[in-house]
């Protein structure tokens, strides 16, 4: 990765180098955005909606998103469902096992901030941003498949704005 990070610095010194880096940037971002393989990580109610989003009517595959069972090969955790205190270290472990660049979508009220289990529950982690950095929050209990798709498109927009220099 180091090479790609330094590439713009070297390239700018040549005439037309800027153009090359921008188009390289564009191509890389586009490819990253349109091939978000998500980790099959579902804990609770939202997992059913995640499955429904992958199924025929909503069809995640249209966005180029397919699931991978191994964290090493996935780019995105869709944290679907309540994360309890017992589960939290596992989520962190999975996140650590993923290869950079990696993204997290917090799906559903529980992962955003505890949701219906904010009060009176001794076992629920109140929001997963205590555990892993979150890119997109999708509220809802559970969010509809449309809002999940919207969340993914938002993440794609975010990825498309990345700069090569920011890598690392």
């Amino acid at each position: 990765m180091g090479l790609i990070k330094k590439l713009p610095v070297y390239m700018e010194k040549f005439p037309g180098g800027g153009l090359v880096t921008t188009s390289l940037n564009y191509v890389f971002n586009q490819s990253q955005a349109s091939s978000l393989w998500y980790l099959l990580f579902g804990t609770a109610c939202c997992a059913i909606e995640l499955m429904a989003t992958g199924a025929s009517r909503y069809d995640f595959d249209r966005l180029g998103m397919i699931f991978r069972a191994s964290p090493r090969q996935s780019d995105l955790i869709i944290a679907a469902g309540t994360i309890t205190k017992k589960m939290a270290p596992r989520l962190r472990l999975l996140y650590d096992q993923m290869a950079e660049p990696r993204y997290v979508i917090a799906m559903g009220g529980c992962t955003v901030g505890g949701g219906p289990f904010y009060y009176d529950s001794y076992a629920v982690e109140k929001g997963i941003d205590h555990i892993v950095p979150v890119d997109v929050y999708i509220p809802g209990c559970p969010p509809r498949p449309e809002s999940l798709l919207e969340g993914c498109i938002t993440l794609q927009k975010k990825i498309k704005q990345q700069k090569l220099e920011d890598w690392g």
Partner: protein
Amino acid sequence: MELVGIFKYLYELLADSGLPEVWVELIGLVAAAVMVFGLLALIALFLVWWERKVSAHIQQRFGPMLTGWHGWRQTIADALKLLQKEDITPTTADRPVYYWAPIIAFVAAFAAYVVIPFGEGLIVADLNVGILFIVAITTFTIISLLMAGWGSNNKYALLGGMRSAAQVVSYEVPMVVSILAVIVFAGSLSMVQIVESQELIYQWYIFRLPFGPIAFVTYIIAATAETNRTPFDIPEAEQELVAGFNVEYSGMKFAMFFLAEFVNVFTVSAIGTTLFLGGWQGPWLPSWVWFFIKTFALVFVFMWFRWTYPRLRVDQLMEFSWKFLVPLSFANLILAGLMKYSGWFNW
């Protein structure tokens, strides 16, 4: 439009340029290798996209739609993304073994194409032991899977690697024996001569009753197992072993396994075409078009299997091979020998 004419012309141009003969030979070979490699990389990328489309339409979905027209850029994007991914080596991994496994898988997958005739005269090297070469080379895949399983130092990966070794060894036998039946009839190990022996449609080995269809079916079943696809995909059974032997691989290394898998699918289809479906033979169209039509049809059959069947359990898989396929293919071989010897059906 026969491509072979163009290549011949280019080669003659090279030969007339006054370079020493060794160099001409070498440049020709390298150019052929590069061309085959590029073509196969393209085919593999295409197959990934095609598989996603086929599966989607079987499942009443669309599949990739937003990356270009009907998502045609999808696999290119996937490949570029995998290129950007961080390359992780687990700290507990057996480093050299872990490192070389995908490379061996990749090379083994491509090396088989040295002897596959893409059309009349379109072959890198017409070895007189061509089919033997292919059988030998494709076996390297097992070694790479075993290495991946061992090198990852992960129990799931190890189980996957062990399963794949057991599986491929079991299915290698019926596959080779069913190929042997064809070889007995063709009387040659050279791929080109095998194709030439089935010039007319009723001479295709699949239509040579009764041994042909049996050998073909045995071959297809064994080939499905060889390429680790459903219903024989136990080495990477997603629901049991997470991702099997490649569970620890990320980024480009994973992409190599992924591409190698699809190249292997194309290989077994190409061999099937050459041995049973008359290779490049066919009327009107150029020979290479016929080859690709037949091969892609076979690939489609493999995809169809994959998206229809559940998965067998590991012991049932072994039983099926040793108790059913192996005896069947040996009986078939004897039948083919008798037919050849007695001269019946020898049209």
